[in-house]
């Protein structure tokens, strides 16, 4: 496994050095204004989950870090890069303590999604897709992972009807050049061949922003995104 991966890496490195040693677009996502205060979640109807959170967790519609940084922003190349194929490895979306971790995942179209129930309670996974197929599956405790794929690019809101506070997002994209901002607001899109790119930043509540970036070679371009916080 390890050697074959290494072999492929060597092969790619030999054949197309630009892909391996290309440019990088990186930066920070911040906000201006005052974000709405996130509400503590009352899980008293599900004691097995409630006891896992002390103090109670809050909603995650807007998650911020220190210095006005904004977390959970999906930053991706929306134009300029090849669509590329879906990576072979699956993306895991875990239900633990009646919470989705992570809150946002990025998937390539056709990439396998694995939904894990790590709780002692049943969940139903209900991606409210509008472009893709909308399905809804029950997953009692101890049942095998749910494996699914999405064919079309779409930001899909996901919820559990049994536990209405559970909410997350599947960002289904036609690119592997994607990065989700951490609590320091940081993102990084490495391995970009020379070219002109459109970089899009998407936030579930604050919408999208785009920037044009040109990569000329083995360089790192710094760009930042700043979202205006919604007052409500």
């Amino acid at each position, binding site marked *: 496994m390890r050697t074959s991966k290494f072999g492929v890496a060597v092969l790619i490195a030999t054949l197309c050095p630009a892909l391996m040693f290309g440019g990088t677009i990186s930066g920070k996502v911040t906000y201006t204004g005052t974000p709405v205060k996130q509400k503590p979640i009352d899980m008293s*109807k599900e004691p097995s989950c409630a006891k896992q959170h002390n103090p109670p967790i809050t909603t995650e519609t807007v998650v911020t870090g220190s210095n006005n940084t904004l977390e959970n922003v999906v930053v991706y190349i929306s134009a300029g890069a090849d669509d590329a194929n879906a990576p072979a490895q699956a993306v895991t979306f875990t239900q633990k303590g009646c919470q989705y971790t992570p809150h946002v995942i990025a998937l390539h179209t056709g990439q396998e999604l694995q939904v894990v129930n790590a709780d002692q*309670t*049943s969940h*139903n*996974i*209900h991606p*409210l897709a*509008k472009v893709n*197929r*909308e*399905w*809804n*599956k*029950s*997953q*009692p405790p101890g*049942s*095998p992972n*749910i494996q699914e794929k999405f064919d079309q690019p779409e930001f899909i809101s996901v919820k559990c*009807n*049994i*536990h*209405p506070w559970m909410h997350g997002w599947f960002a289904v994209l036609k690119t592997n050049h994607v990065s989700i901002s951490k609590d320091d607001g940081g993102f990084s899109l490495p391995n970009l061949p020379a070219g002109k790119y459109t970089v899009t930043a998407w936030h579930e509540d604050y919408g999208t922003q785009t920037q044009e970036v040109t990569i000329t070679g083995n360089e790192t371009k710094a760009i930042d995104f700043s979202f205006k916080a919604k007052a409500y």
Partner: protein
Amino acid sequence: MNSLKRVHFFSVILNFVLAAGISVARAQDAPDVGPHPPEPLKAMESHIGNVTGHSRDAKLDYRRYCAGCHGDLGDGNGENAVWLDPKPRDFTMATFKCRSTVTGMLPTDQDLFNTIARGLTNSNMPIWNTFTKQQRADLVAYIKTFSPRWEKEKPGDPIKIPTEPPVTIESIAHGKALYTKLECWKCHGPQGKGDGPSAATLTDSKDQPIRPYNFTAGGDDSRFKCGSTNADIYKIFITGVDGTPMPSFADVIQPNDAWDLVHFLRTLQVKRHSKENEVLKAAGGKIPPYNETPSTPPASPNNSAAPASPSENRTAGGGN
């Protein structure tokens, strides 16, 4: 139930009005009134047995009988929609409640045809059995013009429904254990009254509040959204009710277990005469606790050829 009687009375009146409406429509040779709905993107067909439905032939029927709620554009925003709960189906989403196909897939033509004939209980969708088979087939084809999904995707094969094993007090007891284990009660309530802890917060895929089914309401005339036979209930566990909080249990329930759950659900319908309630009564009216290691092996297909009781064999949607 008073409200059910009213619904029945209403449907009789409605059928009469509809029948009159159809004859008027024919007599006037399809009058040209009001603004035209936009032309469908593509002509569609449906196949119901040996009947082929054509979307072009349903245009007037759709405008006259469906558009008031479902809208000219099929988006569920007809002029009556604001008054209705649950809201009329948005055909542009191509997400349908009553299917024989797995969750997320399109329904078959027959599924849509059955829904039109059956109507949807606990909603404003009436029983449209005043239409001819051809009219209904044409309407099915017409519904398929509203979403491009019908050109790109296939509904897939209907799920297989294995033969129903005999109703026994053991199967009812096991069904009750499954009702607890699979947490059906979280929404449907411990007694099936639709009052579980999550019930009040449920919303459909359009963020509209939606109630879980109350099994205890209604007597012998009680119906489910997607049919009234035991096989129809079985189907619901496996397919889910897409667009609603009811998920599919296809990957997490074994066929015999699903039948046991069906048998238990029938006993929640306390005012309804059924094989299940007879078995329960014969066993003293109390469901015994389920023993995790049953002394008898699970029913095999060989000894499960017993037909459902006659009351289960009534055809769905036989409103009058």
